[in-house]
């Protein structure tokens, strides 16, 4: 059985990354922006795993585990920031936090 071409895996990662980027650019709800960031991180990890499986090395999977740890830390801080924004501004619209004080 033939192997999956590495281009197709990378294409899938690129499409998912573009969708996540589109989500960040289009949506104005902070929760949705965090979800789109998760999609982008996940597609970057997918690219690592595809490359690792192409050369049969475990390095791609190791990189994916690091991305996983980073995503977990990022999402906990990001959600705490979103809750704080909601309590201060009473909205989840990111445009409401568009201006700085001072």
């Amino acid at each position, binding site marked *: 059985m033939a192997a*999956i071409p590495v281009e*197709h895996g990378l294409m899938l990662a690129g499409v*998912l990354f573009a*969708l996540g980027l589109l989500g960040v650019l289009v949506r104005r709800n902070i929760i949705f922006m965090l979800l789109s960031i998760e999609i982008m991180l996940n597609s970057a990890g997918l690219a690592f795993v595809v490359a690792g499986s192409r050369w049969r*090395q*475990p390095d791609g999977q190791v990189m994916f*585990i690091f991305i996983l740890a980073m995503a977990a830390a990022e999402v*906990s801080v990001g*959600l705490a920031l979103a*809750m704080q924004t909601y309590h201060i501004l009473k909205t989840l619209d990111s445009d409401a936090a568009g201006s700085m004080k001072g």
Partner: protein
Amino acid sequence: MNDLFYISAAVAVISTVMVITKLNAVHALLYLIISLLAIAMVFFSLGAPFVAALEVIIYAGAIMVLFVFAIMMLNIGPEYAELERKYLGPAAWMGPVILAGILIVELLFAFSRGGGRAAGAGVVGPKQTGIALFGPYLVGVELASMLLLSGLIGAYHLGRRDSKRDGEQGRRVS
């Protein structure tokens, strides 16, 4: 196994499009969970079963539960019970259920065809990954642990609401 890759890739792309187009956060979360499960299936068909398991356990399990908790905490109120009843009507969960059904059929098909063998490229199992993780990448593991600790402290600090700070904010607003 090649067909499994392409079908689950299609499921991943479709559900990701639904994530960024749905207006309701809970519906988007349902589709995002399906997307992560589909990508786990992609990992499995690429010969990375350990990472596929981690994707299901940590991404679809832990991180998505965090999102669900945050959304539920942002919507506290008496009107929320009515809203929650509206969230999960049949129209809302039918799409994710269909996509998840496709993934289950794929998984059963893969197991009926002889276990965890992947397509041509060969399997890189948990043993090799673990040896690499705790061999040349040991410094990275330590850095990841420090990153997680700082994430924990940061989330605790940002999520804390003590009375002193609330009073200060009230004064600043008034």
